[in-house]
Structures are given as C-alpha cells and as structure tokens.
C-alpha cells in the first residue's frame, strides 16, 4: 500500500544520504522524496512517498527513527492528510495557444509563468494523480519537458509534526 511519511531531520550534510542509503540498503521503495529546510534553519523536513506491506512500512518507520539525525517521524497515512506536488511544464508556444491547452489549464488551475518566442512554461500544484491527468489531457507528444517535485505532505487539523 502507498504510504506518505513525513520526517524532521537535522539540517546537516550527509543526513539525506543516510536516509536514501537506508532505503536502498534494505530494499525499500521510494516513489518520491522531497526535502527542504523548515522555519527552524537547524531542521529540514522530508516527505517520502513509499509503498509496501504493513510489516515493511512498520520497519521503515522504525528504521528511520533509529537514524541518529532523524528527529521525528510521522506516517501521514495513519490519519487524514493533505499532499501537494508542484509541476512545471514547458510546451511549444503553438500548443500553449491552443484551445485544448487553455481548457486544461483552466480545469487544473495552472498558471502561465514564462513565455519565449517559441515556448511557454506553466506551473501546476495539486496531488500527483491530478498532475498525471493534466499531462494526459495535454498529450505527451505536445510536451517539451516536465519537472515535478514529488509530494509534500501535512496532516489535517490539529495533528502536527514539530519539535
């Protein structure tokens, strides 16, 4: 099953590789991983999207907790949560001008953020499957390039991951 795990870690060199190394050494899946410093500059927050049986997910949580540089771990999938992913898409100017593309932009609430003589770049923020749908709506052969951040997650309501 798909799980989304959020963690706080020391904002130090090498912490990311300890986490990435843990996943590869123990054969766990990483679907996506996103990380950046928090409002407390000594901490970084990471969101990992992974999948596995309940036993594997339990081990992933325990093994992450065991890393000395990991300060707190929360499996967001244990409760209601929100997730968002940022995607940038570059298309030819002609495609961007098409009615179909504009319709898709309206439906998925995309923003035009850059244009050149021959290209146009748009930004979308949503859950991963919605971004997939947008790409499908535009059509793969219409797209010059895409870049996605992977999901960032946060629990709904009062559930908080903070030191």
């Amino acid at each position, binding site marked *: 099953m798909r799980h989304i795990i959020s963690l706080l870690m020391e904002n130090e060199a*090498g912490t990311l590789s300890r986490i990435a190394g843990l996943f590869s050494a123990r054969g766990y899946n990483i679907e996506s991983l996103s990380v950046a410093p928090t409002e407390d500059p000594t901490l970084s927050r990471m969101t990992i999207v992974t999948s596995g049986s309940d036993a594997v997910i339990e081990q992933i949580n325990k093994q992450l907790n065991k890393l000395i540089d*990991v300060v707190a771990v929360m499996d967001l999938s244990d409760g209601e949560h929100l997730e968002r992913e940022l995607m940038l898409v570059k298309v030819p100017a002609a495609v961007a001008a098409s009615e179909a593309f504009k319709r898709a932009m309206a439906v998925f609430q995309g923003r035009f953020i850059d244009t050149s003589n021959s290209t146009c770049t748009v930004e979308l923020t949503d859950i991963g499957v919605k971004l997939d749908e947008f790409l499908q709506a535009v059509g793969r052969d219409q797209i010059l390039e895409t870049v996605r951040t992977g999901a960032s997650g946060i629990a709904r309501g009062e559930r908080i991951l903070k030191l």
Partner: protein
Amino acid sequence: MELAGELTGAEITVRCLQEEGVEYIFGYPGGAALHIYDALFRQDKVKHILVRHEQAAVHAADGYSRSSEKIGVALVTSGPGITNAVTGIATAYMDSIPMVVISGQVPSTMIGEDAFQEVDAVGITRPCVKHNFLIKDVRDIAPTIKKAFYLARSGRPGPVLVDIPKDISFQKTTFNYSDPVVIRSYNPPGEGDMNQVRKAIQLLMTAKRPMMYSGGGVILSGASAELTELVRLLGFPCTNTLMGLGAYPATDKLFVGMPGMHGTYEACMAMQNCDVLIAIGARFDDRVVGKVEHFNQVQRKIIHLDIDPSSIAKRVKVDVPVVGDLKRVLNQFLVELRSIKQKPNAADLAVWWKQVNDWRFKGGGLKYNNSTEIIKPQYVIEKLYEVTGGDAFVTSDVGQHQMWAAQYYKFIKPRRWINSGGLGTMGFGLPAAMGVQLINPGATVACVTGEGSIQMNIQELSTCKQFHLPIKVVSLNNRYLGMVRQWQEFFHGNRYAESYMDALPDFVKLTESYGHIGMRIDKPSDVEPALREAFSRKKDLVFMDFQTDPTENVFPMVPGGKGLSEVMLDPNMPHPEVEDL
C-alpha cells in the same frame, strides 16, 4: 592569534581519549593521522598497540569491548587505512559492539579533489556504523568525540566513526570536555512499559510449553544475573544464541544448548514447538529460526524484549513487545513475578520438560565418534574446556571450529565467548584475542581457529610478540575450509570447489619465526598433554597446530532454507526414537 592554553586538534583528540579513561588504543599510522600520532607520542596515559593491518586494529578494539564493559578504540589513517578497517567495523556493527574508530582524513581543503589516500570515509562506512562524523571545525573535535563515546555505549551499542582531516588536527582551540552530551533526536530507552511487562507475565503464566530464548543483547546489557534469576524462578527451558552463550550457565540443567543451524536437537525442537516464546535481546536471525515460513507453521505467542524497536517484528510477528534496556526490563519482570505470587502450572511444565528431555535423549547430547587414530576436532575442544577449567576467554574465527567451540566449550560466564556471529568474519579470532588479553591481563585467552581463518590475519603474531601477549592459538587444521567443504558435501554433490587448502605453511616454523612457540599435534593421545604444556606457559604465545579429521562434519545441522524441526542429526551416531508432540 594564539591563546595561552590552546591545544591542537590532535592533542584534543588524545585528551578526549584520556578523559574517557581509554587505556589502550589499536592502530596503524599514516600521513593523515600523523599529528594525532605525534600527540600520542608526547603523553603516556593512552598506550598505543601497533597492529600489522588495520582490520586487526578494529578486531582488537572489538575483542577489548566484548571481553570487558569498556569501549575499544581504533585509530587509522585515511584511504587504505579506513578501507582496511571497514571489515572490522562491519563485524562490530553486526554484533552491536560499542567502539569508537578515529580516522585521519586528507586536509579539508583537499577533500573531493581525489587527493593522495583520499576516500570518503563517512560514505564508505555509513551502512556499517551506528553513526559517523566528519569534523569540519577544530572546535567540534571534543564535543564530537564525546558524542561518539556516548552513542557507542548507549541504547543498542555499535561502532561510531570520527573522521578528522589533517589540517584540522593541527589547528588550535581551547579544550573543554565537561559539557554534557545533548542529542535532541536520540533518547535511548530505559525501563519497559509496565503494562507490557504484566501482559507478558500473564502469557508466561498460562503457557503450557514455554521457552526462553536469549541473545547477545543480554550480555551487552550486563543482564546475565537477571536472566539467570528469571529462568530459575520460572523453571522454563532456556537457550542462548551463538551471541548469547555464557549469559546463562551452559552447565545448568535448565539450559538446553544453543538453537539454530548448529544448535542442539532439543533447543531446535523446543523453539519450534513451544506455545509461548520469550525472546530476550535476540533477533530471530535466519541462522536461529531457519526458514521463517516453516517457523510460523506452529501457532505460538511471542514476547520480545529488546532495546531496539526495529528488531521487534522484523522477521516474525510479535504478540507482546517490551522495549527497554534489558537489565532494567528483566528486573521489572523479577519484581512483578515476586509480587503476584502466581506460579507457572507445575503439571503442564512437567509434561513439557518430559518432552524436552525426550528430545535431549534422542539428540544424544553433543556427542561424536571419537577415535584413537585421528584427532577429532570436538575432542580438542572438550580437552580445551577441561584443561582451562572452563574459565578461559575463548575467541574464535569462522567456520566449523567456531561451531564446535560454541557447542563443546560450556560457557558459564558472560563475555567469555568472543566470536563474529553476525558478519561471520574469518580472521577475527587472533586480533580479537589481542584486545581480550590486554584488557584482561593475566587471564587465560585461547583463540580457536582453523588453518584457513588464521591465515587471514596471521601477521598479528608479530604484534603479539611486540606486546608480549601470551595467547594460546588452538588451530584445528583439517586442510579444508571445513564449513565450505561440509556444504559442498551435503548440497553440491561432493564437488569441493576451492575448499582445499593446498600449500599450507609449516605453522610450527612460521610461529617460531615470529618468536613464539609452535607445536604440531598428530595423535589423539597427544592432545591433552600438548594443551597442558601450552597452557602452563603463562608468558608465551603457543600455536598448537592440531592435525584433525578432514571429513568431520558439524552436527546437528538445520540446512539453509529449512525449518528448525528439519534438523539433521549425525548419521553415524545412535538416535533412539521418542514420542513427538
């Protein structure tokens, strides 16, 4: 500007070791570590033992830790110094041995430039350390080394590496070691949850076929006395894993031997068929429970006591986990058991013990066909046990000799059996024995080895000479990589691919050339006199080259991928039929 009272990073490093009460460190110098070696030279509190290969430095520090409650320290240089140390670090990591390794690194200004003897020490050791550090500021040296010692010894212990670039080891700052260690992300468990303890005790009280299974965690926690008391209070059968031998006295009637691949028949059968299993500082290793699917075929409740939550429910489902330091958790069990006045059902327990004893009878104990013609390896271990009064520190290498030593030397105290259980590192025995001998001066230290393993670190005979370490090397020389040969005989159609040790040296002459005493023993009748002679030489290292039966196999054996009740017994020994469950 240089302030009065400032020390170099190297001097601070050595001061830290002094503050930690480190008496011996094991190491090998090289360019990036030279400032630290210079600082060592200019003091006499921390004594340095010069090994002949960095792997041996780490194994020696490891033996030092395992045979005491102190932390072994190794010091190596950058590049090949640290890569040679990796096998030793991984060995310590797999067995959760507290250790601090200090490595020199190329100057910080040259890191990443493929400098001479540069290797990413933190990167290359990351998967096999509890934690590691690359020092970037001389002011971080003291607090980091203090953290390293704290991390190594607390919680589930393990090796910690501190990598110090050469330029930083020569920069200066003031020395302060008094600040307490604060690691906000690290809070090792203490006592167990009392509700879980009560739940566990209720399960134990209702068990009809209970079994106690303890591992290396009990020894690491210093909880042998508590374990022994608990086993006696409950009267349940008790097994110790390879890492746990000595935690419960092997001579006691409640002890059923080691479980697993080369465990006793009764321990394997009792592990498989019990209805409540309490695992104490053990991790359901594949060499202990065999094939998990087979182990799970029997319905049983499992109680698991461990300091590391990630050891719980890793390979088998656990019904009652108790996370905590075992010494404290076992004390909680003892206090609670005494207060509830409830006792296990004596009638049920008697029936279960009859079954366990029937298995013991069928297994025939640990016996072998002795010979007057050829030396049986088991016979050497039996005599070693007798000659040393069962009170030696015994290190071993890896292979058949290791299993025979584990089976036939009946350990009655913790920290006496020193072997590489998790990683299975050949070459461990002799350097580990050096560490054991240094921290236990005057004690009898035997290294049980084979002609394959000993050659992986035989250069340490030179270290033993330099530092007057009177280790007794008991080499079971069968001219084969015996365990490999055994698997090839059983599972690879007798095709002995590369398991024959051809062109062996004359070990007597080799030992003599290192300045020690060598003995070659060919006849069974010479085994005991040779051991007596060797062990009477309190000041000498004696290398005993026992020419043993090359065809002998280790039994019982649970073949890889099989279940515990599929254990094979020695086909050459009688095994009376008994009623099974």
